[in-house]
């Protein structure tokens, strides 16, 4: 009987601690689920400037925490996603966007594959036509 009570106390205290841990991970509260969804999307689309390949949502660096807090405050203040992304871009540049926009400096990366594919297709069809002509002869 006593061992059962002890067991129950242990289990319930474990459950209590696990709830506290969950609470510590996500401390942002939203009354509007729409804003919560936007917070989620923005923190997944913004890159942590300090840790290269992590987004703000996954990073625990102090800078990411600060930037997440800013996203949260700006959402509650009624700023649009565009305004928030602009704020981040002004300070940390294109790097902070996980889906970079096309600019002069990265235009080649965007257009490169299309250019290479076109060159390849032209060469391939030339080769193919020549081959067929030779076969026909």
């Amino acid at each position, binding site marked *: 009987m006593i061992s059962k009570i002890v067991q129950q106390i242990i289990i319930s205290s474990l459950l209590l601690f696990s709830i506290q841990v969950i609470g510590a991970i996500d401390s942002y509260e939203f009354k509007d689920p729409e804003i919560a969804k936007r917070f989620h999307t923005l923190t997944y689309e913004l890159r942590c*400037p*300090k840790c*290269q390949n992590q987004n703000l949502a996954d990073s625990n660096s*102090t*800078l990411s925490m*600060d*930037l997440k807090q*800013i996203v949260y405050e700006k959402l509650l203040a009624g700023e649009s996603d565009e305004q928030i992304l602009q704020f981040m*871009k*002004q*300070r*940390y*540049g294109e*790097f902070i966007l996980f889906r970079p926009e096309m600019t002069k400096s990265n235009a080649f990366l965007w257009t490169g594959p299309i250019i290479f594919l076109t060159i390849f297709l032209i060469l391939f069809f030339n080769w193919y036509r020549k081959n067929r002509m030779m076969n026909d002869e």
Partner: protein
Amino acid sequence: MSEQSSILKPVISIAAFIGFLILFYFLIGKDKTELPSQFINQPAPKFQVVDLLKEKLIHTEEDFIGKITLLNVWASWCPSCYAEHPFWRQYAKNKDIVLVGLNYRDTKKKALKFINQQGNSYQWILFDKNGRLGIEFGVYGAPETFIIDPQGIIRYRHVGVVTPEVYKTIFLPLIDKIKGGF
């Protein structure tokens, strides 16, 4: 015709190969961990921040006007800042350039301890307790050092420790350029 193309073919392939090597050198050769500052040749961001040592003193971006300023981002939790500070201590004797500290994301107690132990090399220190001023400047770590010209325009941002070598090769030429009117 066929003879000409048999010579051309290897030449084109070798040229393409060298082209790719050059391209990769430029893509991979750069240090990807260093972010370029968004504020180069831009005015310093607007701010109103309290002084670390004089609680009632408020600083703004207008305090940069009139002299060349080196804005050094430091914190008591940053090991490299301890390594860098002896250089600034030496540098503080330089009177024609204002050395300003930005105490980034620190507690007052620890920041004051740092200053007491290491010596105060700064003419004034911005106290950025929650890191918001750092974010305004696009800071992503400490130490970082900005060169700000007498018009309040940011001309350079150095990420990492400023050693005498870095100062001589990067900072001095830029400071001379600013003195000459940029």
